[in-house]
């Protein structure tokens, strides 16, 4: 004895291979979940979005920076002409000594009656020379 359902379904048992083929076809159409972006896989968030997402490029860039830094430090101490303005400003005491020495040399070369202008007024002097209003 069979149920009507069994009778109905058994009627089409021979079609099963074709239905299996259709099932495989339909399964192939299932959209796969999209993988996360590569840069997230490296832990780089949106802040680092401008960096190239490929690790090889990042490594090459880092190596280039290291090379530039090494070349910079090697050329620095051995080349005296490469003294920068920043380095000069960083040593004001030596500058003042050089300046007073040159002034002394100039005094020696000039005749004794020559007036040598004094040093320019400092900021503090200028500050105290306020113009006064004559209220007559």
């Amino acid at each position, binding site marked *: *004895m*069979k149920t009507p*359902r069994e009778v109905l379904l058994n009627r089409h048992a021979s079609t099963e291979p074709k*239905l299996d083929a259709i099932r495989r076809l*339909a399964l192939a159409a299932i959209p796969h979940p999209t993988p996360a972006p590569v840069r997230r896989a490296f832990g780089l968030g949106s802040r680092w979005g401008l960096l190239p997402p490929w690790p090889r490029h990042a490594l090459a860039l880092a190596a280039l920076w290291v090379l530039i830094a090494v070349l910079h430090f090697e050329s620095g101490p051995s080349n005296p002409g490469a003294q920068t303005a920043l380095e000069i400003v960083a040593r004001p005491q030596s500058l003042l000594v050089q300046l007073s020495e040159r002034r002394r040399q100039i005094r020696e070369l000039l005749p004794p009656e020559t007036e040598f202008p004094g040093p320019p007024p400092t900021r503090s002097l200028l500050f105290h020379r306020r113009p006064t209003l004559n209220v007559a």
Partner: protein
Amino acid sequence: MAVPDDREDLPVPEARAGSSEAWEVLFRRFQRPVYTYAFGILHDEQSSLDVVQETFLNAIRHLGSLREDRKFAGWLFGIAHQKCLQACRRAGRDERLQEALSASEADSGEAPDLRLLREEDASAFLAAVDSLPAPQRSVLLLHYLEDFSLDAIAGITGAPLGTVKSRLHHARKALHCLLNAPPSRSTVSVSANSLPFSP
């Protein structure tokens, strides 16, 4: 094959998440019932296979629109039903409806239910089902194949509940008559190819 009900554990949430294994389970479970339903309506193998394929592809695309996972079977058969309608229209079949049956909704006594069939009655049963008018055949197939409730069948076919009740009642009655009739009478011509469904 067990007849499903609302308690059947189908991997619908997993399928919604894109799991191929879940879809495999669902397709295996429903491929033959859907085909049987489509063939019962269309009576053509190739058209029925097309309906199965289109039903599955639509299910993959639109599973997100299914609100209640436990209604997956009814939802899937609803798609198959629509595909059968489209196939009927493409084939240019007669769209006359068998509304004469749906007009008489008063039950004149319950027809005997065909719960179990003997082996020798199987072919007669299939022939009797095939000879039913398409609207009744559709309702009967949904009832027997998946044991859908009348409400569910109404939802699948888009017909009012009263119409579904009437169709099922008359389908059972006609089936009983055809099975108990002598062989010469079982070939009573009923337009089996007319378009089945319209409220």
